């Protein structure tokens, strides 16, 4: 395949690349060159990358190629490109958090997750755009522009893992790392038509990732397929004694669980949440169709009721704003002009909250978690909305200090349950719609199992964005 052909084609899935590298059919160096060429061609339109690490990537790819040729293949991800949201540390590279405050912040060590991906032999091709400090919103008064949606660059990617969603949807990489405090993995996955998993709180280490809210932050993967998400989780999941929130629990074989299908599973569809969350008619219809597809595959679908969205939002917003203000208070007081206006104003709201409100939100958090846990006494997985409809136009996104529409995704940041966003159709304007599968604490395996069965039946992954500039 010529360089032009490789650039014009989305990178293969992690699973396909792994198989082809193992058989000797695909060279890690050629794969890295393809990713870099595609990044160079598309980044002027998409602004997905803050930094493309070409030399480092090619050196890592050559090393991988030598090791594999020498019979030292490390596993199914060896020699495959990936990218990091620019809040993850990678030794020797800047971690800017998309902010003027950290323009000279060079990481001295890898984040725990970066280290795991590097140990698996993956090839880092760059650092990705984010909303500043993984909060705020798309901003035009920062050193780097906001990422744009590959399905239509006039539209929003969702955030805050904006570059991660754009890079995977554009087929520049098949794995990008994101973080999720109130939906920041699942929203860009949903708006960009990719898969995105917010693992259970504590399942994947947060060490070496810029914090936003200690008690809600999670880290996780965005991929094109659910199988790829399982492959990534196999590397990422596990106890980290240096992350105070990390859980010391065994990690199952995620890929093996994909084979089991959904026949006999009981899936609770939170259909009333569509109205409560002001979900639009196209997205609601796509969720109904998702439930029907799963029923056709042998799952039993029952309707379940989540507690009112307003309770989740009050809880999530109080905790998130309070903790993020605590993290940023010194800079907000001493050099506020360095933040984007939208970041500064949204962070400042946390300074107006009281200790009483924070404690009451944490009390409500336990009540809400108990109520959602009760739903899992009769269901293995929940199906819910994660976005109200397709991605809005970028320049029309809400940039006020208080978001008028509260994100639906933060429900499961409050409760800590694992939640997977994946495509479930397309709106009339050609933009992706998304479904969310939610599981019991630390049962990512069953969530991925349902997502994989649905994905294979629905076939949405066959459709890719038509991209100019290739």
């Amino acid at each position: 395949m010529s360089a032009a052909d490789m650039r014009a084609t989305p990178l293969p899935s992690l699973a396909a690349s792994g198989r082809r590298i193992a058989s000797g059919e695909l060279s890690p160096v050629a794969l890295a060159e393809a990713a870099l060429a595609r990044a160079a061609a598309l980044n002027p339109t998409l602004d997905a990358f803050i930094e493309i690490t070409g030399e480092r990537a090619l050196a890592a790819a050559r090393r991988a190629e030598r090791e594999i040729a020498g019979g030292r293949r490390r596993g199914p991800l060896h020699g495959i490109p990936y990218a990091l949201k620019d809040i993850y540390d990678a030794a020797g590279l800047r971690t800017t958090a998309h902010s003027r405050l950290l323009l000279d912040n060079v990481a001295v060590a890898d984040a725990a997750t970066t280290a795991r991906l590097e140990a698996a032999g993956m090839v880092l091709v760059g650092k990705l755009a984010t909303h500043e400090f993984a909060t705020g919103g798309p901003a035009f008064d920062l050193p780097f522009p906001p990422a744009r949606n590959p399905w239509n660059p006039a539209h929003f990617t969702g955030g805050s893992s904006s570059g991660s969603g754009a890079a995977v949807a554009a087929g520049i990489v098949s794995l990008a790392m994101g973080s999720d405090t109130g939906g920041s993995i699942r929203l860009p996955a949903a708006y960009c038509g990719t898969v995105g998993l917010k693992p259970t709180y504590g399942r994947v280490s947060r060490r070496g990732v810029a914090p936003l809210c200690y008690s809600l932050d999670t880290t996780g993967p965005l991929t094109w397929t659910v199988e790829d998400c399982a492959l990534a989780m196999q590397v990422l999941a596990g106890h980290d004694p240096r992350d105070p929130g990390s859980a010391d629990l065994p990690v199952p074989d995620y890929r093996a669980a994909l084979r089991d299908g959904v026949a006999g599973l009981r899936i609770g569809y939170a259909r009333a949440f569509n109205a409560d969350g002001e979900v639009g008619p196209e997205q609601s219809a796509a969720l109904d169709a998702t439930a029907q597809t799963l029923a056709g595959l042998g799952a039993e679908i029952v309707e379940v009721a989540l507690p009112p969205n307003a309770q989740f939002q009050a809880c999530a917003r109080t905790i998130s704003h309070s903790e993020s203000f605590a993290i940023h208070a010194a800079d907000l007081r001493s050099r506020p002009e360095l933040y984007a206006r939208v970041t500064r104003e949204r962070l400042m709201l946390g300074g107006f909250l009281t200790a009483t409100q924070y404690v009451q939100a944490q009390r409500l958090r336990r009540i809400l978690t108990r109520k959602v846990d009760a739903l899992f006494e009769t269901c293995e997985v929940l199906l819910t909305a994660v976005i109200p409809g397709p991605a809005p136009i970028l320049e029309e996104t809400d940039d006020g200090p208080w978001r008028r529409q509260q994100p639906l995704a933060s429900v499961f940041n409050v409760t800590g349950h694992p939640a997977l966003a994946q495509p479930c159709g397309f709106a009339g304007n050609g933009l992706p719609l998304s479904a969310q599968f939610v599981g019991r604490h630390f049962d990512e395996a069953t969530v991925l199992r349902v997502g994989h069965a649905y994905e294979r039946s629905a076939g949405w992954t066959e459709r890719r964005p038509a991209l100019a500039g290739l």
Partner: protein
Amino acid sequence: MPDDRESEFAAAVRRAGVAIPAERWAAMREAYFSMQALLAVLDDPRAYEDEPAALPRYAGPQP
């Protein structure tokens, strides 16, 4: 804007120790009261035994 609401917001800003430019004062004040309206549900009655979610875990020695 009634004086008591204006003074409530001004007090919150002083307590936070942040500076808000004059041209953004009204937008931030509106955001503050929108936030407080959403958070009213936090004042719903709770039982004494409804403890906070974020309690320390004593699972063993920390590194």
